[in-house]
């Protein structure tokens, strides 16, 4: 499995993502990929990490969305490559239109940085098959603009298609319906505000994020095995 961790000017969780992917994805090659790259051919998983790309100027994710690498991400997403956007990565994916909705300023205006209990509301995905249905997991958050919003029609679609993957047990930011993470209709693009890469060992306070990476590996193996046959 070949993993790309995108790096924009202002990304700051890229090394954490590299570390987590190397620790949890056995045999995977993990590479940091600069935002000017325009070809992502050959990668099986693209991680759009957290941080403050372009200083969050204009809106978080608004400028990163037009970086050359994002056209390649859009193409890869269309080809079924797994794309995981974390925190600022989620914001970038919504700005790019790869996921519906938008992330607004936290309702309480405070930058929330702490562990948070998430409910796995859909465990039939490539990203969450390792969790029990409705399992509550402990994954930290660290954001000032994680207040998910979409219109009623989009929300109905998200529910109808089981696109809501994680919800907060205790809503930290005002997100509608306590939404913490959603995926696209094809199920290969997931965006979430919490940081699974920061929950991969007991030393970090939780290793509930490990099973997310393991789920992706399992999905990739299954897909690969199918292709071989």
């Amino acid at each position, binding site marked *: 499995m070949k993993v790309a961790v995108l790096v924009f000017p202002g990304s700051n969780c890229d090394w954490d993502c590299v570390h987590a992917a190397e620790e949890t994805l056995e045999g995977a090659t993990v590479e940091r990929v600069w935002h000017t790259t325009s070809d992502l051919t050959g990668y099986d998983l693209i991680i759009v990490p957290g941080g403050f790309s372009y200083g969050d100027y*204009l*809106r978080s994710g*608004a*400028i990163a969305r*037009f970086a050359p690498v994002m056209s390649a991400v859009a193409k890869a997403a269309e080809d079924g490559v797994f794309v995981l956007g974390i925190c600022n990565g989620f914001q970038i994916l*919504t*700005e790019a239109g790869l996921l519906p*909705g*938008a992330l*607004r*300023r*936290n*309702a*309480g*205006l405070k930058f929330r940085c702490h562990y948070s209990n998430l409910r796995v509301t859909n465990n039939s995905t490539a990203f969450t098959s390792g969790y029990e249905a409705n399992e509550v997991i402990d994954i930290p958050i660290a954001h000032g603009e994680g*207040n998910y*919003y*979409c*219109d009623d029609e989009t929300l109905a679609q998200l529910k109808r298609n089981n696109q809501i993957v994680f919800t907060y047990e205790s809503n930290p930011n*005002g997100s509608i319906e306590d939404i913490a993470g959603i995926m696209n209709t094809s199920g290969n693009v997931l965006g979430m505000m919490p940081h699974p890469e920061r929950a991969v060992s007991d030393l970090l306070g939780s290793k509930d994020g490990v099973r997310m990476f393991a789920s992706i590996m399992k999905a990739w193996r299954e897909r690969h095995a199918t292709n071989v046959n």
Partner: protein
Amino acid sequence: MFKAKVYVTTKANVLDPQGAAVQQALHTMGYGAVEEVRIGKYMELTLNTNDRAEAEAELEKMCKQLLANTVVEDYRYELED
């Protein structure tokens, strides 16, 4: 040359936490008449063209693609010679 003034504001039906905080501060200061505060962005663009129709068409695209996120924001602009 045109000067474009672009105003981006949070949609009326979308919560504006910053506006709410500022409104609260104004109330604390005694400005009880403040019914609502909405915070937005103001941008000035200098456009190197003499074709007003073209400038407007381009601005419209710029607003939709980058300057505003139409999921949560509205925009309007003025063009000055």
